[in-house]
């Protein structure tokens, strides 16, 4: 390495070191700030070791007049985060399935970036597989949600059709059998119309794709497990099956040829 190269390398190392120090300083400042906040909560009790207690302390510090156990508050506006039962509310925050739906596109972009990042030959990069699996889960959630919306519209249409075709007098007659048949007829027509619609076809396609991708991912995971435990993988068994199949076909052909030869010889 000549002198010029050495200087360049040193400069690069300095820059990297400075970056690391700046990053660590920033972390320590955040940690200190967080620590101060916890102390301000009247700490010194179980919250240091018990995340649930810390959570309750945090709520008390921020909203001293709000009782997490009472109804109302967040519960009425964010039905998926049920803060009425404080402990559940806390753990739901830790469950990606509960919150990823609120920012699926942003999250998907992040995951794609990780999944499609460059590969390095000598580095194990489990995060790429995990990101793919997560993205597939998001896809499935979205597909299921869209399919659910399409079918919900079908039921709304069924209800609308029923109320148009059956007057209040019909319903007030007390003839529930006739009303039931009418409802089933309306529902059947609405569902069939929906199942032939472009919206349904698109939602169905996405559902099939997403669920099959998840299934394929499960297969990959099972293969990893099989390999780890010195067991034959699905792929290996399939490869053997293909070999046996091809051999049997060849044997069949040979037998046919033999029969032909015998037939010609007679």
């Amino acid at each position, binding site marked *: 390495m000549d002198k010029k190269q050495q200087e360049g390398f040193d400069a690069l190392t300095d820059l990297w070191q400075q970056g690391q120090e700046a990053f660590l300083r920033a972390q320590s400042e955040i940690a200190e700030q967080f620590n101060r906040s916890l102390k301000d909560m009247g700490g010194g009790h179980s919250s240091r070791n018990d995340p649930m207690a810390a959570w309750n302390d945090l709520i008390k510090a921020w909203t001293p007049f709000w009782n997490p156990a009472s109804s109302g508050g967040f519960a009425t506006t964010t039905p998926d985060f049920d803060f009425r039962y404080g402990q559940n509310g806390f753990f739901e925050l830790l469950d990606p399935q509960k919150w990823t739906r609120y920012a699926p596109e942003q999250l998907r972009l992040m995951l794609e970036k990780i999944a499609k990042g460059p590969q390095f030959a000598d580095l194990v990069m489990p995060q790429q597989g995990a990101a793919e699996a997560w993205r597939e889960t998001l896809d499935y959630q979205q597909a299921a949600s869209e399919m659910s919306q399409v079918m919900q519209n079908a039921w709304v249409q069924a209800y609308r059709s029923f109320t148009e075709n059956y007057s209040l007098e019909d319903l007030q007659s*007390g003839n529930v059998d006739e009303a*039931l048949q009418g409802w*089933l007829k309306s529902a059947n027509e609405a*569902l069939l119309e929906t199942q032939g619609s472009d919206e349904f076809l698109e939602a169905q396609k996405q559902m099939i794709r997403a669920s099959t991708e998840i299934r394929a991912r499960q297969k990959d995971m099972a293969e990893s497990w099989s390999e780890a435990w010195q067991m034959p993988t699905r792929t290996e068994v399939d490869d053997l099956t293909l070999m046996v*199949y091809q051999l049997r076909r060849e044997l069949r052909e040979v037998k046919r040829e033999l029969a032909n030869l015998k037939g010609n010889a007679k």
Partner: protein
Amino acid sequence: MMPPSRTPNGGRFNEVDTALEAWSIAMRQLFETGKKAVRSGGFLAEISNEDVQIAEAEYETVFEVDKVRLFHYLPTEKTNSKIPPVVICYGLFGRQTMIDLQEDRSLVRNLLAAGIDVYVVDWGNPTRADQFLNFDDYVDYYLGSCMEHVVAANGGKPVNMFGICEGGTFAVMLAAMRPEMFAGLAIAITPVDFHGDSENFWLGEGFLNSWINNLDENDIDLLVETYGMLPGAMTGAIFAALTPINSMTKYNLGIANLDGDKDAMLNFLRMEKWIADRPDHPAELARQWLNGLYRENKLVKGEFVISGKPVNLKKISCPVLNIYALQDHIIPISCSKALGDFLKPSQYEEIGFPGGHVGVFVSRKAQGVVAGGLIEWLQKDHAKTGTKSTPKRKSSKTNGKK
């Protein structure tokens, strides 16, 4: 049933009286439905799975190759030697037990009673170990071997084949590839043109066609490769989705309406037993069925290849009877009738059955229209032409031997 708007002496009911009367009518109806449900529930509580038997006609297994077996049904009447035997071929979307669901609704028993010699192909239960089996295997090898066996048993003379649903497509293909083995070909509820007249499908018709066509080739590939099969449970769920309200109400309202009637309940349970027994499709067979036929419609284009050769439907030389169901929501009529376009008018006949896909075999009406029509067709002179010996295919000697 509207509540009366006037009292017996001509005075008007007040609103409370009308409401009470309506409530009374509603409660009576609900109570009646409740009683029916209780009676049906009582029947179900008493019955066990063993009490529900299907496919009880007697047969013996006369030929086996891999998991495929060929049954020869024992005659119940003197066999009419002028009519060549019939080989019945069902598909893999259901089991061949459909044709002998119960004693009084059995195609097999109707044929036997008419003195016709009956063979039936049983595909067995393919597993993931069979995932690479394809149309070469099912049509050319398995079905071809079964036919060779029956032709040999018939003194080397051609025989009849009756193909049903997917099995009808298999039969059509084999008849085009090996016409020398066929005295006659009958098919029922069979897709040939997999796109059909999609512009004119009625509401609920052709969903299967449009749903599969909506997928890409890669979707199908990933599906069958991931599962290694097309699972029977999956196809069952798809069939159930084709008739959504019927599927949602059959175990509640449907059962209640049977009112505990023994015969009706047993009919229902036999059908349930048949539906529950749905084999898986090997992956390669499913891939060709879904991509090559449903999506790309290769059969009617003359592009579907079996054992290295394209299947040419115009090569079918025997008389053909095509039975389709006018209210078939699974196989549109236009998909079945398309076979006629490839045949001479003199060799082709049709029966349009006024019913649905499965009703072709299990409804009471079908016993006369379908079974009766098939028997009449088999008894005609043209289906008795199996008098000349069938030239053996050069390579057929060892086909199908275990």
